[in-house]
């Protein structure tokens, strides 16, 4: 059924994933490409938001919504807040002079991409169908996540929460001399 591209059957799932992945990749490029800091931040917001939808398509609603709450809703709002407080000037002010850093950065980027790709892509050679086995229906449900967080991984979970608490107290101490 359906059209075929490069020998892969075009299912609705694949189309949804393709659209989301393309858009989020474009946004990721936009984050580094835009000279305007606010637009970069906005691209990152859209990227996080679309990633959440990728999680939704993988039956991991909990994960996706946490992504929106934490990254899109809290962290990026703070980013924007800081950018607006700094009130960076016109986009021209941000243009750097072309020196060895740009080509070197590009080269290193391509190298990293090649390294990751050489490990990942061979697995997909000859694959023509999306595999839909694996994750259970209730794999990403709040119940399943909660149960594993508070039974199997309770020590790391509590350790992380203490770490965060220490971080909060420390930042308040640094920011505020008189408490």
């Amino acid at each position: 059924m359906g059209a075929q591209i490069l020998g892969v059957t075009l299912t609705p799932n694949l189309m949804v994933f393709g659209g989301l992945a393309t858009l989020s990749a474009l946004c990721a490029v936009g984050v580094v490409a835009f000279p305007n800091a606010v637009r970069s931040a906005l691209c990152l917001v859209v990227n996080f938001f679309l990633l959440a939808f990728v999680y939704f398509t993988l039956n991991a609603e909990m994960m996706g919504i946490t992504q929106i709450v934490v990254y899109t809703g809290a962290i990026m709002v703070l980013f924007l807040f800081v950018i607006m407080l700094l009130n960076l000037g016109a986009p021209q002010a941000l243009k750097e002079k072309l020196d060895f850093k740009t080509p070197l950065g590009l080269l290193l980027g391509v190298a990293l991409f090649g390294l990751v790709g050489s490990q990942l892509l061979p697995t997909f050679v000859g694959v023509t169908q999306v595999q839909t086995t694996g994750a259970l229906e209730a794999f990403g449900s709040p119940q399943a996540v909660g149960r594993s967080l508070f039974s199997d991984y309770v020590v790391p979970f509590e350790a992380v929460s203490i770490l965060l608490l220490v971080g909060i107290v420390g930042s308040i101490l640094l920011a505020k001399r008189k408490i």
Partner: protein
Amino acid sequence: MAWPAAVQAVVRALLLLLPVLMLVPGLIWWERRLLSWMQDRIGPNRVGPFGLLQPIADGVKLFMKEDITPSAVDRAIYFIAPAVALFPAFAIGGTMPWGPNRWLTPVADVNIGVLYILAISSLGVYGIVLGGYAANNKYSLMGGLRSSAQLISYELAMGMSLACIVLATGSLKMTDMVAAQEGPLWGVVPVIQNWFLFTPYGAISFVIFVICMIAETNRAPFDLPEAENELIAGYHTEYSSMKFAVFFMGEYAAMMLFGGILSCVFLGGHNFVPINWDGLAHSAPALSWVAGVFGNLNYYLAPIWFLGKCAGVITFYIWLRATLPRLRYDQLMNLGWKTLLPLATANFVVVALWILATRLMSESQGQTMGSILGFVAAIIAGSIIYLLWKAIFLSRKGDLLQPRDIDMVKPAVEARTVEMVDPNAGVA
């Protein structure tokens, strides 16, 4: 009902969106009339009966107005900001059930219902922040900054107050929350429904949620982002015509849908009154026909009761706007971080104790003893928390809401003498 899932989804979405879209003008009319009445004015009464057609006239006027785009704005962001502001205002109702028929509502009964609401409401800040930034106007920027700080602060307390109800229900689904409120009150009184407003922890959560809800929708007395005596109109100072109207509509839609969420989580959702008609028929067989009639009314007219509750919440919003003066910025922050968040966190402990007490006691002694123990546990926990709170307050010097020092100008001392110069003195 073998409709394709896509058609069903579209029908559900439309059944949520269209009523909201249609009721927003009515809402604006109701706000203006009620506010006028509370302020001893007349309000809009010329267009149509009781001025009912005034919102339509306003809408036409807004369409016809010249759409001015200031030259110094960041164009792309300036144009998308109103749309970004409108999206969460409508999307927030996605998991909200407005009737008992699960085939028609909610749009998506996902297992993350409440988290979805928190996530979408946290996106509401973007429209305001972007509008404030893009306008390239100091007042707008101040409005945007205030709004983002305010929303971040109140989101936390709102999340905690909802978490209490999640703990009590044992589910994140909105439909489960409504179902849990149809049970007997405190697990004991079969005739009355267990609306979370009537439980000790729910009442505290309710108050916190209402305050946070008003702050999230930027309404008086938390309307600092658009405080007109300080910031002209805040984030939408530079917006005119339809783009302004979109911001306006987003605000009202958000008010209404937050009203719906409040009704679902604390006020029994689509149930008319907190009476369990089946329970009544069971405990008083003589009244069973009354219970039957009202039970049917309760079931078949559910959306009307739900909308009625929304209207009640909106009336409360307007009443607050007419009553309370705007908070000062430091008061707003102190209320959010130093009062509501600790209170909501403490309430979380109280809920846990309540659940523990009722479950433990119910197993050995029966429901009634369980509820009594729950009340005792809640009261003890509440008093311990209150005493701790008092101790913290007393250990400080002075009040948390300190009056700010303002250097008053003394005209008698600082009066300048201005010499008047006649510009035409040397001409003639």
